Protein backbone atom coordinates (compact mmCIF):
# COMPACT_ATOMS: atom_id res chain seq x y z
CA UNK A 1 0.00 0.00 0.00
CA UNK A 2 1.10 3.53 -0.72
CA UNK A 3 0.59 4.65 2.83
CA UNK A 4 2.93 2.00 4.14
CA UNK A 5 5.57 3.28 1.75
CA UNK A 6 5.12 6.86 2.94
CA UNK A 7 5.31 5.69 6.53
CA UNK A 8 8.49 3.77 5.80
CA UNK A 9 10.09 6.82 4.16
CA UNK A 10 9.11 8.96 7.10
CA UNK A 11 10.48 6.45 9.58
CA UNK A 12 13.74 6.23 7.64
CA UNK A 13 14.02 10.02 7.65
CA UNK A 14 13.33 9.95 11.38
CA UNK A 15 16.10 7.44 12.01
CA UNK A 16 18.50 9.53 9.99
CA UNK A 17 17.61 12.61 11.99
CA UNK A 18 17.71 10.74 15.28
CA UNK A 19 21.42 10.40 14.55
CA UNK A 20 21.89 14.13 14.89
CA UNK A 21 21.12 15.86 18.12
CA UNK A 22 19.06 18.94 18.78
CA UNK A 23 19.97 21.93 20.91
CA UNK A 24 16.90 21.26 22.99
CA UNK A 25 18.05 17.72 23.68
CA UNK A 26 21.59 18.82 24.58
CA UNK A 27 20.27 21.45 26.92
CA UNK A 28 17.85 19.04 28.59
CA UNK A 29 20.78 16.76 29.37
CA UNK A 30 22.81 19.57 30.94
CA UNK A 31 20.18 20.81 33.33
CA UNK A 32 20.71 19.30 36.70
CA UNK A 33 17.81 18.58 38.98
CA UNK A 34 16.24 21.77 40.26
CA UNK A 35 16.66 22.41 43.92
CA UNK A 36 13.37 22.56 45.71
CA UNK A 37 12.21 24.59 48.65
CA UNK A 38 12.37 23.39 52.20
CA UNK A 39 9.63 21.21 53.64
CA UNK A 40 8.68 21.72 57.28
CA UNK A 41 8.52 18.39 59.03
CA UNK A 42 7.56 19.47 62.49
CA UNK A 43 4.47 21.65 62.23
CA UNK A 44 1.10 21.62 63.88
CA UNK A 45 -1.99 23.69 63.30
CA UNK A 46 -5.10 24.46 65.29
CA UNK A 47 -7.64 21.73 64.57
CA UNK A 48 -10.42 22.68 62.17
CA UNK A 49 -8.35 25.13 60.16
CA UNK A 50 -7.65 24.68 56.45
CA UNK A 51 -3.97 24.37 57.31
CA UNK A 52 -4.63 21.42 59.63
CA UNK A 53 -6.83 19.72 57.04
CA UNK A 54 -4.23 20.08 54.29
CA UNK A 55 -1.39 19.09 56.60
CA UNK A 56 -3.23 15.93 57.67
CA UNK A 57 -4.15 15.07 54.09
CA UNK A 58 -0.48 15.39 53.14
CA UNK A 59 -1.44 16.49 49.67
CA UNK A 60 -2.68 19.66 48.09
CA UNK A 61 -4.13 20.82 44.78
CA UNK A 62 -2.68 24.00 43.34
CA UNK A 63 -3.97 25.88 40.33
CA UNK A 64 -1.42 27.50 38.06
CA UNK A 65 -0.97 28.54 34.46
CA UNK A 66 1.28 26.53 32.20
CA UNK A 67 1.81 28.96 29.35
CA UNK A 68 3.49 31.91 31.07
CA UNK A 69 7.24 32.09 30.42
CA UNK A 70 9.06 32.65 33.69
CA UNK A 71 5.98 32.04 35.86
CA UNK A 72 4.55 28.71 34.82
CA UNK A 73 5.49 26.47 31.91
CA UNK A 74 4.95 22.75 31.63
CA UNK A 75 8.18 20.78 31.27
CA UNK A 76 7.49 18.07 28.69
CA UNK A 77 10.00 15.69 30.29
CA UNK A 78 8.92 15.88 33.90
CA UNK A 79 5.24 16.69 33.24
CA UNK A 80 5.47 19.18 36.09
CA UNK A 81 5.10 22.94 35.70
CA UNK A 82 8.13 25.15 36.29
CA UNK A 83 8.36 28.84 37.08
CA UNK A 84 8.19 31.53 39.72
CA UNK A 85 4.48 30.96 40.45
CA UNK A 86 5.22 27.28 40.89
CA UNK A 87 8.08 27.96 43.32
CA UNK A 88 5.90 30.30 45.40
CA UNK A 89 3.24 27.59 45.57
CA UNK A 90 5.92 25.11 46.71
CA UNK A 91 7.09 27.46 49.46
CA UNK A 92 3.56 27.73 50.82
CA UNK A 93 3.03 23.96 50.58
CA UNK A 94 6.38 23.36 52.29
CA UNK A 95 5.28 25.39 55.31
CA UNK A 96 2.21 23.15 55.48
CA UNK A 97 4.53 20.14 55.64
CA UNK A 98 3.76 19.05 52.09
CA UNK A 99 6.58 18.02 49.78
CA UNK A 100 6.65 19.30 46.19
CA UNK A 101 6.05 15.74 44.92
CA UNK A 102 2.77 15.65 46.84
CA UNK A 103 1.41 18.73 45.13
CA UNK A 104 -1.22 18.02 42.51
CA UNK A 105 -0.97 20.67 39.79
CA UNK A 106 -4.10 21.73 37.99
CA UNK A 107 -4.11 24.10 35.07
CA UNK A 108 -6.27 27.11 35.81
CA UNK A 109 -6.97 29.61 33.06
CA UNK A 110 -8.47 33.07 33.32
CA UNK A 111 -11.96 31.68 32.73
CA UNK A 112 -11.96 29.20 35.61
CA UNK A 113 -9.72 30.52 38.38
CA UNK A 114 -12.62 31.90 40.42
CA UNK A 115 -14.95 28.95 39.92
CA UNK A 116 -12.22 26.43 40.75
CA UNK A 117 -11.51 28.25 44.00
CA UNK A 118 -15.19 28.62 44.87
CA UNK A 119 -15.91 24.96 44.17
CA UNK A 120 -12.88 23.77 46.10
CA UNK A 121 -11.37 22.08 43.03
CA UNK A 122 -8.10 23.76 43.97
CA UNK A 123 -6.83 24.75 47.42
CA UNK A 124 -5.17 27.89 46.16
CA UNK A 125 -4.25 29.50 42.86
CA UNK A 126 -0.85 30.97 41.97
CA UNK A 127 -1.30 31.94 38.34
CA UNK A 128 -0.16 35.49 37.43
CA UNK A 129 -3.38 36.43 39.17
CA UNK A 130 -3.75 40.22 39.41
CA UNK A 131 -5.45 41.39 42.59
CA UNK A 132 -8.36 43.68 41.78
CA UNK A 133 -11.67 44.72 43.32
CA UNK A 134 -13.94 42.81 40.95
CA UNK A 135 -12.14 39.58 41.80
CA UNK A 136 -12.13 40.36 45.52
CA UNK A 137 -15.92 40.03 45.35
CA UNK A 138 -15.51 36.36 44.45
CA UNK A 139 -12.31 35.18 46.11
CA UNK A 140 -9.77 36.28 48.71
CA UNK A 141 -6.18 37.17 47.92
CA UNK A 142 -3.03 36.62 49.93
CA UNK A 143 0.05 38.59 48.94
CA UNK A 144 0.93 40.20 46.63
CA UNK A 145 4.06 38.13 46.18
CA UNK A 146 5.15 40.05 43.09
CA UNK A 147 4.57 43.43 41.48
CA UNK A 148 4.49 43.01 37.74
CA UNK A 149 4.75 45.90 35.32
CA UNK A 150 3.37 45.95 31.83
CA UNK A 151 6.06 46.61 29.25
CA UNK A 152 6.50 46.62 25.48
CA UNK A 153 8.60 44.36 23.25
CA UNK A 154 9.59 45.51 19.77
CA UNK A 155 11.66 44.23 16.88
CA UNK A 156 15.43 44.48 17.43
CA UNK A 157 16.66 48.05 16.89
CA UNK A 158 13.20 49.43 17.60
CA UNK A 159 12.64 50.58 13.98
CA UNK A 160 9.38 52.36 14.83
CA UNK A 161 10.87 54.19 17.83
CA UNK A 162 8.25 52.98 20.29
CA UNK A 163 9.33 54.29 23.69
CA UNK A 164 6.08 54.42 25.64
CA UNK A 165 2.50 53.15 25.38
CA UNK A 166 1.49 56.51 23.86
CA UNK A 167 3.64 55.65 20.84
CA UNK A 168 1.42 52.62 20.24
CA UNK A 169 -1.31 54.76 18.67
CA UNK A 170 -2.03 53.46 15.17
CA UNK A 171 0.41 50.56 15.60
CA UNK A 172 -0.43 46.85 15.59
CA UNK A 173 0.03 45.66 19.15
CA UNK A 174 -0.12 42.02 20.15
CA UNK A 175 -1.24 40.48 23.42
CA UNK A 176 -3.30 37.57 24.70
CA UNK A 177 -7.09 37.68 24.54
CA UNK A 178 -8.62 37.75 27.98
CA UNK A 179 -5.47 39.05 29.69
CA UNK A 180 -5.27 42.11 31.90
CA UNK A 181 -2.59 43.82 29.77
CA UNK A 182 -4.84 43.57 26.70
CA UNK A 183 -7.67 45.19 28.65
CA UNK A 184 -5.30 47.93 29.81
CA UNK A 185 -4.50 48.84 26.22
CA UNK A 186 -8.19 48.88 25.34
CA UNK A 187 -9.08 51.07 28.28
CA UNK A 188 -6.20 53.54 28.26
CA UNK A 189 -4.68 53.47 24.76
CA UNK A 190 -7.70 52.91 22.50
CA UNK A 191 -5.84 54.14 19.40
CA UNK A 192 -3.55 51.11 19.41
CA UNK A 193 -4.69 48.36 17.05
CA UNK A 194 -4.86 45.15 19.08
CA UNK A 195 -3.95 41.74 17.68
CA UNK A 196 -4.95 39.01 20.11
CA UNK A 197 -3.83 35.38 20.25
CA UNK A 198 -4.26 32.68 22.86
CA UNK A 199 -0.56 32.38 23.84
CA UNK A 200 2.40 34.77 23.92
CA UNK A 201 4.66 32.69 21.70
CA UNK A 202 2.30 33.43 18.80
CA UNK A 203 2.70 37.16 19.50
CA UNK A 204 6.47 36.77 19.44
CA UNK A 205 6.29 34.91 16.12
CA UNK A 206 3.99 37.58 14.69
CA UNK A 207 6.53 40.23 15.73
CA UNK A 208 9.36 38.35 13.99
CA UNK A 209 7.22 37.99 10.87
CA UNK A 210 6.36 41.69 10.83
CA UNK A 211 2.66 40.93 11.33
CA UNK A 212 2.59 43.15 14.40
CA UNK A 213 4.71 46.15 15.47
CA UNK A 214 4.88 45.47 19.21
CA UNK A 215 3.97 42.97 21.90
CA UNK A 216 2.79 44.07 25.31
CA UNK A 217 2.34 42.21 28.59
CA UNK A 218 4.13 41.67 31.87
CA UNK A 219 7.83 42.56 31.66
CA UNK A 220 9.09 39.22 32.94
CA UNK A 221 7.17 37.31 30.27
CA UNK A 222 8.52 39.71 27.65
CA UNK A 223 12.07 39.34 28.95
CA UNK A 224 11.62 35.59 28.54
CA UNK A 225 10.53 36.07 24.95
CA UNK A 226 13.49 38.35 24.22
CA UNK A 227 15.87 35.82 25.78
CA UNK A 228 14.73 33.21 23.26
CA UNK A 229 15.61 35.37 20.22
CA UNK A 230 17.82 38.26 21.33
CA UNK A 231 18.85 38.98 17.72
CA UNK A 232 15.27 39.66 16.66
CA UNK A 233 13.53 41.23 19.64
CA UNK A 234 14.17 43.86 22.26
CA UNK A 235 12.46 45.19 25.35
CA UNK A 236 11.52 48.87 25.68
CA UNK A 237 12.15 48.50 29.39
CA UNK A 238 9.82 51.14 30.81
CA UNK A 239 7.01 49.39 32.71
CA UNK A 240 3.90 51.56 32.76
CA UNK A 241 1.55 49.73 35.13
CA UNK A 242 1.72 48.01 38.48
CA UNK A 243 0.02 44.63 38.63
CA UNK A 244 0.09 43.02 42.07
CA UNK A 245 0.05 39.23 41.67
CA UNK A 246 -1.71 37.49 44.54
CA UNK A 247 -2.50 33.98 45.71
CA UNK A 248 -6.21 33.31 45.29
CA UNK A 249 -8.08 31.29 47.88
CA UNK A 250 -11.62 30.67 49.07
CA UNK A 251 -13.46 33.79 50.19
CA UNK A 252 -13.80 34.11 53.94
CA UNK A 253 -10.97 31.74 54.91
CA UNK A 254 -9.14 34.46 56.83
CA UNK A 255 -7.00 32.05 58.85
CA UNK A 256 -5.59 30.48 55.70
CA UNK A 257 -5.05 33.90 54.14
CA UNK A 258 -3.17 35.14 57.21
CA UNK A 259 -1.10 31.97 57.21
CA UNK A 260 -0.10 32.41 53.56
CA UNK A 261 0.67 36.08 54.16
CA UNK A 262 2.93 35.09 57.07
CA UNK A 263 4.66 32.51 54.88
CA UNK A 264 5.20 35.09 52.14
CA UNK A 265 6.62 37.67 54.52
CA UNK A 266 8.93 35.07 55.99
CA UNK A 267 10.12 34.09 52.51
CA UNK A 268 10.84 37.74 51.71
CA UNK A 269 13.21 38.01 54.66
CA UNK A 270 14.81 34.54 54.81
CA UNK A 271 15.95 34.65 51.18
CA UNK A 272 13.80 31.79 49.90
CA UNK A 273 11.73 34.23 47.83
CA UNK A 274 14.83 35.59 46.11
CA UNK A 275 16.15 32.05 45.63
CA UNK A 276 12.88 31.05 43.97
CA UNK A 277 13.25 34.02 41.65
CA UNK A 278 16.85 33.15 40.75
CA UNK A 279 15.90 29.56 39.92
CA UNK A 280 13.10 30.56 37.55
CA UNK A 281 12.37 34.02 36.21
CA UNK A 282 15.88 35.19 37.05
CA UNK A 283 17.42 32.30 35.12
CA UNK A 284 15.52 33.35 32.01
CA UNK A 285 15.98 37.10 32.31
CA UNK A 286 19.45 37.05 33.81
CA UNK A 287 18.31 39.74 36.23
CA UNK A 288 18.64 39.82 39.98
CA UNK A 289 15.56 39.43 42.14
CA UNK A 290 13.68 42.72 42.59
CA UNK A 291 12.62 44.14 45.95
CA UNK A 292 9.82 41.97 47.33
CA UNK A 293 6.46 43.76 47.49
CA UNK A 294 4.57 44.75 50.61
CA UNK A 295 2.00 42.15 51.66
CA UNK A 296 -1.45 43.75 51.73
CA UNK A 297 -3.61 42.46 54.59
CA UNK A 298 -6.80 44.15 53.45
Amino acid at each position, binding site marked *: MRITRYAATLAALGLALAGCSSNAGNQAQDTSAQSTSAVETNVSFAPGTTMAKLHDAGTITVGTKIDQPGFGLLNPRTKVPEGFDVEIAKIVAGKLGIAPESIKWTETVSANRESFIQNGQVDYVVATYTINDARKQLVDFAGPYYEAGQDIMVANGNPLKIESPDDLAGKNV*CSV*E*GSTPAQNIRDHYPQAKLT*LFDVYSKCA*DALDNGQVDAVTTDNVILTGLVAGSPDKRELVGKPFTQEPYGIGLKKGDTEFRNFINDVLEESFTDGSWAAAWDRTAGKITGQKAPEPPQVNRY
Partner: protein
Amino acid sequence: MQFLIDNFALFRDAFLTTLSLSLLAGVLALVLGTLLAALRVSPVAPLRGLATFYVETFRNTPLTVVFFFMIFGLPQIDFVIGFFPGAVLSVGLYTAAFVAEAVRSGINAVSAGQAEASRAIGLTFGQTLREVVLPQAFRTVVPPLGNVWIAMIKNTSIAAGFSVSELSSLLPRLVNANAGDLLTVLLGVVVGYMLITLPSAYVVHRLERRVAILR
Protein backbone atom coordinates in the same frame (compact mmCIF):
# COMPACT_ATOMS: atom_id res chain seq x y z
CA MET B 1 -29.15 41.27 31.31
CA GLN B 2 -27.63 44.63 32.25
CA PHE B 3 -24.28 43.06 31.45
CA LEU B 4 -25.38 42.21 27.91
CA ILE B 5 -26.72 45.73 27.38
CA ASP B 6 -23.50 47.28 28.64
CA ASN B 7 -21.48 45.21 26.22
CA PHE B 8 -23.90 45.43 23.33
CA ALA B 9 -21.43 47.14 20.99
CA LEU B 10 -18.91 44.34 21.56
CA PHE B 11 -21.44 41.64 20.78
CA ARG B 12 -22.63 43.53 17.69
CA ASP B 13 -19.11 43.97 16.27
CA ALA B 14 -18.21 40.36 17.00
CA PHE B 15 -21.44 39.22 15.36
CA LEU B 16 -20.72 41.27 12.23
CA THR B 17 -17.20 39.85 12.08
CA THR B 18 -18.51 36.29 12.27
CA LEU B 19 -21.10 37.10 9.60
CA SER B 20 -18.67 38.67 7.14
CA LEU B 21 -16.07 35.95 7.72
CA SER B 22 -18.75 33.32 7.05
CA LEU B 23 -20.06 35.01 3.91
CA LEU B 24 -16.63 35.56 2.33
CA ALA B 25 -15.38 32.08 3.21
CA GLY B 26 -18.67 30.62 2.00
CA VAL B 27 -18.36 32.18 -1.45
CA LEU B 28 -14.74 31.03 -1.73
CA ALA B 29 -15.66 27.50 -0.62
CA LEU B 30 -18.57 27.28 -3.04
CA VAL B 31 -16.55 28.39 -6.08
CA LEU B 32 -13.43 26.37 -5.28
CA GLY B 33 -15.45 23.34 -4.13
CA THR B 34 -17.43 23.22 -7.38
CA LEU B 35 -14.23 23.51 -9.37
CA LEU B 36 -12.69 20.66 -7.36
CA ALA B 37 -15.77 18.49 -7.89
CA ALA B 38 -15.54 19.12 -11.64
CA LEU B 39 -11.85 18.18 -11.54
CA ARG B 40 -12.65 14.96 -9.71
CA VAL B 41 -14.88 13.76 -12.55
CA SER B 42 -12.74 15.17 -15.37
CA PRO B 43 -11.22 13.02 -18.17
CA VAL B 44 -7.64 13.96 -17.24
CA ALA B 45 -6.29 11.55 -14.63
CA PRO B 46 -3.68 13.90 -13.08
CA LEU B 47 -6.35 16.53 -12.53
CA ARG B 48 -8.51 13.93 -10.81
CA GLY B 49 -5.51 12.97 -8.68
CA LEU B 50 -4.78 16.58 -7.78
CA ALA B 51 -8.37 17.19 -6.67
CA THR B 52 -8.45 13.95 -4.69
CA PHE B 53 -5.19 14.89 -2.97
CA TYR B 54 -6.60 18.29 -2.06
CA VAL B 55 -9.86 16.91 -0.70
CA GLU B 56 -8.22 14.11 1.31
CA THR B 57 -5.60 16.42 2.83
CA PHE B 58 -8.05 19.06 4.00
CA ARG B 59 -10.64 16.54 5.16
CA ASN B 60 -8.16 14.81 7.44
CA THR B 61 -6.59 17.89 9.03
CA PRO B 62 -8.12 19.80 11.92
CA LEU B 63 -9.07 23.33 10.90
CA THR B 64 -6.84 24.73 13.64
CA VAL B 65 -3.82 23.22 11.91
CA VAL B 66 -4.86 24.79 8.60
CA PHE B 67 -5.09 28.13 10.40
CA PHE B 68 -1.68 27.68 11.91
CA PHE B 69 0.01 27.13 8.58
CA MET B 70 -1.87 30.01 7.01
CA ILE B 71 -0.88 32.54 9.69
CA PHE B 72 2.50 31.23 10.89
CA GLY B 73 3.59 28.82 8.15
CA LEU B 74 3.35 31.18 5.17
CA PRO B 75 5.75 33.76 6.69
CA GLN B 76 8.35 30.96 6.70
CA ILE B 77 8.27 31.15 2.89
CA ASP B 78 8.21 34.95 3.10
CA PHE B 79 4.51 35.50 2.47
CA VAL B 80 2.68 37.45 5.12
CA ILE B 81 -1.09 37.56 5.05
CA GLY B 82 -3.43 39.66 7.16
CA PHE B 83 -5.32 37.94 9.97
CA PHE B 84 -8.81 38.42 8.60
CA PRO B 85 -7.91 37.46 4.99
CA GLY B 86 -5.97 34.54 6.47
CA ALA B 87 -9.07 33.42 8.35
CA VAL B 88 -11.23 33.72 5.22
CA LEU B 89 -8.70 31.67 3.26
CA SER B 90 -8.32 29.00 5.97
CA VAL B 91 -12.04 28.48 6.49
CA GLY B 92 -12.74 28.76 2.75
CA LEU B 93 -10.03 26.31 1.64
CA TYR B 94 -11.02 23.83 4.37
CA THR B 95 -14.72 24.01 3.60
CA ALA B 96 -14.10 23.72 -0.15
CA ALA B 97 -13.08 20.09 0.39
CA PHE B 98 -16.48 19.34 1.89
CA VAL B 99 -18.36 21.34 -0.73
CA ALA B 100 -16.50 19.30 -3.37
CA GLU B 101 -17.65 16.06 -1.76
CA ALA B 102 -21.24 17.25 -1.56
CA VAL B 103 -21.31 18.45 -5.17
CA ARG B 104 -19.66 15.25 -6.37
CA SER B 105 -22.35 13.18 -4.67
CA GLY B 106 -24.87 15.38 -6.53
CA ILE B 107 -23.11 14.76 -9.83
CA ASN B 108 -23.22 11.04 -9.16
CA ALA B 109 -26.93 11.30 -8.45
CA VAL B 110 -27.71 12.67 -11.91
CA SER B 111 -28.77 9.69 -13.95
CA ALA B 112 -26.21 8.29 -16.36
CA GLY B 113 -28.68 8.44 -19.22
CA GLN B 114 -28.61 12.22 -19.16
CA ALA B 115 -24.85 12.34 -19.53
CA GLU B 116 -24.98 9.73 -22.26
CA ALA B 117 -27.68 11.69 -24.08
CA SER B 118 -25.55 14.85 -23.85
CA ARG B 119 -22.59 13.07 -25.34
CA ALA B 120 -24.80 11.58 -28.04
CA ILE B 121 -25.81 15.06 -29.20
CA GLY B 122 -22.15 16.06 -29.29
CA LEU B 123 -21.66 18.12 -26.13
CA THR B 124 -18.13 18.25 -24.79
CA PHE B 125 -17.24 17.34 -21.19
CA GLY B 126 -17.34 20.98 -20.13
CA GLN B 127 -20.67 21.57 -21.81
CA THR B 128 -22.16 18.38 -20.38
CA LEU B 129 -21.11 19.44 -16.91
CA ARG B 130 -22.16 23.09 -17.22
CA GLU B 131 -25.38 22.75 -19.18
CA VAL B 132 -26.78 19.42 -18.07
CA VAL B 133 -25.24 17.83 -14.99
CA LEU B 134 -24.28 20.64 -12.59
CA PRO B 135 -27.62 22.50 -12.71
CA GLN B 136 -29.37 19.32 -11.65
CA ALA B 137 -26.64 18.32 -9.23
CA PHE B 138 -26.92 21.64 -7.39
CA ARG B 139 -30.63 21.15 -6.93
CA THR B 140 -30.14 17.77 -5.30
CA VAL B 141 -27.32 18.99 -3.06
CA VAL B 142 -29.11 21.98 -1.57
CA PRO B 143 -29.67 20.21 1.77
CA PRO B 144 -26.08 18.94 2.19
CA LEU B 145 -24.67 22.27 1.01
CA GLY B 146 -26.93 24.04 3.46
CA ASN B 147 -25.59 21.81 6.21
CA VAL B 148 -22.01 22.50 5.13
CA TRP B 149 -22.76 26.22 5.29
CA ILE B 150 -24.13 25.95 8.81
CA ALA B 151 -21.26 23.74 9.95
CA MET B 152 -18.88 26.28 8.44
CA ILE B 153 -20.42 29.10 10.48
CA LYS B 154 -19.68 27.28 13.70
CA ASN B 155 -16.17 26.46 12.44
CA THR B 156 -15.36 30.16 12.04
CA SER B 157 -15.00 30.19 15.82
CA ILE B 158 -11.51 28.71 15.43
CA ALA B 159 -10.46 32.13 14.09
CA ALA B 160 -10.70 33.43 17.66
CA GLY B 161 -7.32 31.83 18.39
CA PHE B 162 -5.80 33.69 15.43
CA SER B 163 -6.60 37.29 16.19
CA VAL B 164 -10.03 37.62 14.61
CA SER B 165 -12.41 39.21 17.10
CA GLU B 166 -15.43 37.11 16.27
CA LEU B 167 -18.16 35.83 18.57
CA SER B 168 -16.25 33.14 20.47
CA SER B 169 -13.37 35.50 21.16
CA LEU B 170 -15.76 37.26 23.53
CA LEU B 171 -15.60 34.28 25.90
CA PRO B 172 -12.02 34.81 27.08
CA ARG B 173 -12.21 38.56 26.64
CA LEU B 174 -15.26 39.19 28.82
CA VAL B 175 -14.80 36.34 31.26
CA ASN B 176 -11.38 37.52 32.48
CA ALA B 177 -12.82 40.69 33.94
CA ASN B 178 -16.31 39.36 34.73
CA ALA B 179 -15.87 35.78 35.92
CA GLY B 180 -19.23 35.98 37.67
CA ASP B 181 -21.04 36.53 34.38
CA LEU B 182 -19.73 33.37 32.72
CA LEU B 183 -23.19 32.02 31.93
CA THR B 184 -24.40 35.33 30.54
CA VAL B 185 -21.43 35.60 28.18
CA LEU B 186 -22.01 32.02 27.03
CA LEU B 187 -25.65 32.78 26.40
CA GLY B 188 -24.85 35.93 24.43
CA VAL B 189 -22.39 34.05 22.23
CA VAL B 190 -24.85 31.21 21.57
CA VAL B 191 -27.59 33.68 20.65
CA GLY B 192 -25.16 35.40 18.28
CA TYR B 193 -24.57 32.16 16.37
CA MET B 194 -28.27 31.36 16.36
CA LEU B 195 -29.02 34.71 14.72
CA ILE B 196 -27.10 33.41 11.71
CA THR B 197 -27.83 29.70 11.77
CA LEU B 198 -31.57 29.68 12.42
CA PRO B 199 -32.45 31.96 9.47
CA SER B 200 -29.94 30.01 7.35
CA ALA B 201 -31.63 26.74 8.21
CA TYR B 202 -35.00 28.27 7.33
CA VAL B 203 -33.80 29.59 3.96
CA VAL B 204 -32.16 26.27 3.10
CA HIS B 205 -35.37 24.48 3.98
CA ARG B 206 -37.44 26.77 1.75
CA LEU B 207 -34.95 26.56 -1.08
CA GLU B 208 -34.89 22.79 -0.81
CA ARG B 209 -38.65 22.62 -1.30
CA ARG B 210 -38.58 24.96 -4.27
CA VAL B 211 -35.84 23.30 -6.23
CA ALA B 212 -36.34 19.68 -5.24
CA ILE B 213 -36.50 17.29 -8.17
CA LEU B 214 -39.13 14.63 -7.90
CA ARG B 215 -37.84 11.28 -9.03
